[in-house]
């Protein structure tokens, strides 16, 4: 790819002069379209705003038609840049795409198609715009706004979401662009992962493990932003049960801890702490967090002067939750774990008569599931007699 393509940005694209008249003569655009383009093109935001406020959908229709009917890369890039500019100035304009007057237009199709071909500029802009448009769709009972007319075969939002997730996962795995792919993809995902449909297909496409490597300490402004958005994705996923399993098996937790230890950026810390809060109650995360030393990290985080009160609240909440976990861990469960792992170590807890007294009943409850297992392992280690002796010894103490 030529280097100027890689560096192509909107500013450069928008400096181009597109020969709209020629398109009209060749009947690729209508006379009305030309009129609207003349009013809109090369104008300032102040001039454009009223146009869009009054007749937004018509302009959208023009843009969509061009993208649908015209293949010339320069023009496509130009129109994409226009749309991007329009949405950046006011993201609410994404709603215009869902105006009833555009019901017959397939608003998604051009962008979805352009994801897979053309320059990186086209792909990046298409993905960004598509994300904004599909996220702005009016939701009726959580169902998709597809065409009820099966003859027309209009792209449904489900199709869009599926296609986007597919493209984004590929970008994360095999970036089309050496430096821009990942930031752009993460940015899109941070918006899309708010929806449970997206979470579901993302997890199914094994996307979680693609995000994990991106969790690493960052120092430059750009990398911090990518880190923030990655953490945003992880946090969003932590609300989704199936994703949590993936997070557990990947090395997400240690990486998050690394980052939160060293980061000075409040928003990054904020997100990670929120993620911990979500994970605390699930599965073995609590135990893992304690093992990896999170309680101490929380302490040191609390000592730092953050300005966000929500962050402080969440840290306190974490602290409480972790304390509970520690209490639980010093109990039967950890013993069970140790027995099963064959690591019957004489930690201080095991010498505690109270521990034994409380947990004899637990042994019985579990139908001696672990007791026999323990016996087997312990016999293996030839420590059975020692243990039995000690147990009786303890029990005698207890009886006193």
């Amino acid at each position, binding site marked *: 790819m030529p280097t100027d393509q890689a560096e192509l940005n909107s500013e450069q694209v928008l400096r181009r002069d597109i020969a709209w008249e020629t398109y009209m003569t060749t009947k690729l655009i209508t006379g009305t379209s030309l009129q609207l383009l003349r009013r809109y093109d090369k104008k300032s935001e102040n001039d454009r705003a009223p146009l869009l406020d009054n007749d937004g959908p018509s302009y959208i229709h023009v843009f969509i038609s061009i993208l649908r009917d015209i293949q010339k890369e320069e023009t496509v890039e130009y129109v994409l840049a226009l749309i991007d500019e329009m949405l950046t100035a006011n993201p609410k304009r994404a709603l215009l795409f869902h105006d009833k007057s555009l019901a017959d237009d397939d608003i998604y199709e051009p962008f979805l198609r352009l994801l897979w071909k053309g320059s990186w500029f086209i792909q990046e802009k298409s993905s960004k715009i598509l994300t904004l448009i599909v996220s702005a769709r009016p939701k009726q009972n959580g169902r998709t706004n597809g065409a009820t007319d099966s003859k027309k075969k209009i792209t449904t939002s489900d199709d869009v979401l599926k296609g986007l997730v597919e493209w984004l996962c590929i970008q994360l795995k095999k970036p089309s662009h050496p430096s821009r792919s990942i930031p752009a993809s993460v940015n899109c995902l941070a918006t899309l992962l708010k929806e449970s449909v997206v979470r579901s297909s993302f997890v199914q496409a094994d996307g979680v493990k693609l995000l994990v490597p991106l969790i690493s300490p960052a120092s430059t402004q750009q990398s911090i932003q990518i880190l923030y958005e990655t953490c945003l994705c992880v946090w969003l996923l932590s609300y989704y049960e199936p994703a949590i399993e993936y997070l557990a098996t990947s090395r997400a937790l240690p990486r998050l801890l690394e980052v939160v230890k060293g980061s000075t950026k409040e*928003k990054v810390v904020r997100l990670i702490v929120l993620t911990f809060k979500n994970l605390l109650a699930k599965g073995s995360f609590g135990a893992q967090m304690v093992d990896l030393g999170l309680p101490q990290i929380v302490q040191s985080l609390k000592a730092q002067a953050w300005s966000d009160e*929500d962050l402080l609240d969440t840290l306190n909440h974490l602290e409480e939750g972790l304390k509970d976990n520690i209490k639980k861990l010093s109990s039967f469960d950890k013993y069970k774990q140790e027995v099963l792992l064959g690591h019957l170590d004489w930690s201080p807890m095991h010498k505690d008569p109270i521990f034994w007294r409380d947990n004899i009943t637990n042994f019985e409850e579990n139908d001696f599931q672990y007791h026999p297992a323990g016996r087997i392992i312990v016999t293996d280690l030839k420590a059975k007699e020692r243990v039995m002796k000690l147990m009786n010894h303890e029990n005698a103490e207890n009886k006193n």
Partner: protein
Amino acid sequence: MNDADVSKQIQQMVAFIRQEAEEKANEISVSAEEEFNIHKMQMVDTDKKKIKQEYERKTKQVEVKKKIEYSMQLNASRIKVLQAQDDVVVAMKESARKELLNVSSNRRTYKDLVHSLILQGLLRLREPSVVLRCREIDVTLVEGVLEEAKKAYVAKTKLSSPKIDIDRKEYLPAPPNNNDPHRPSCSGGIVLASQDGKIVFENTLDARLDVIYRNKLPTIRKTLYR
């Protein structure tokens, strides 16, 4: 730094602050939405459970009701059957009773019968002195067989001939008729009593029918309702 630079820097700072604010706003919005979803799911679950329990309770209620209904119906039917059976048996007795009238209408056989009835009574009582009661219309007939009965008794028992007084003060009621079915009636036969009235032997046709009926009831039922 000239104005343009300053202005640009300010713009950058504004943009930065705005971005940070929007990011935080986004996080708040997401948190709120997710918490709402979790809450809603919990509430839906609780209510679903409640409704399920309610439904199970109601289903059980209906089942119990059905069982009770069935049991009641079964009982009612059983009683109906028993009642019908009873009715048939009673009807049998009634028609038998009606037949009794014919007995007394045949003078010759009735006379022999009365003789036997008196004899049977004498043998049962074994009293030297008895009172005999009969229907008013039978008086003549009874007087006619009295001596023979006494003789038969003596022959059988070798005892002395008993004294038989016919009670002319009080007679057995008249035979039944359709005009007044509820008045006490007698279809025939006699009643014998010891002189002091302490031992009474009812040998009317009606009494005999009762006895037979009672004795034969099990057999009757067996035959009818096998």
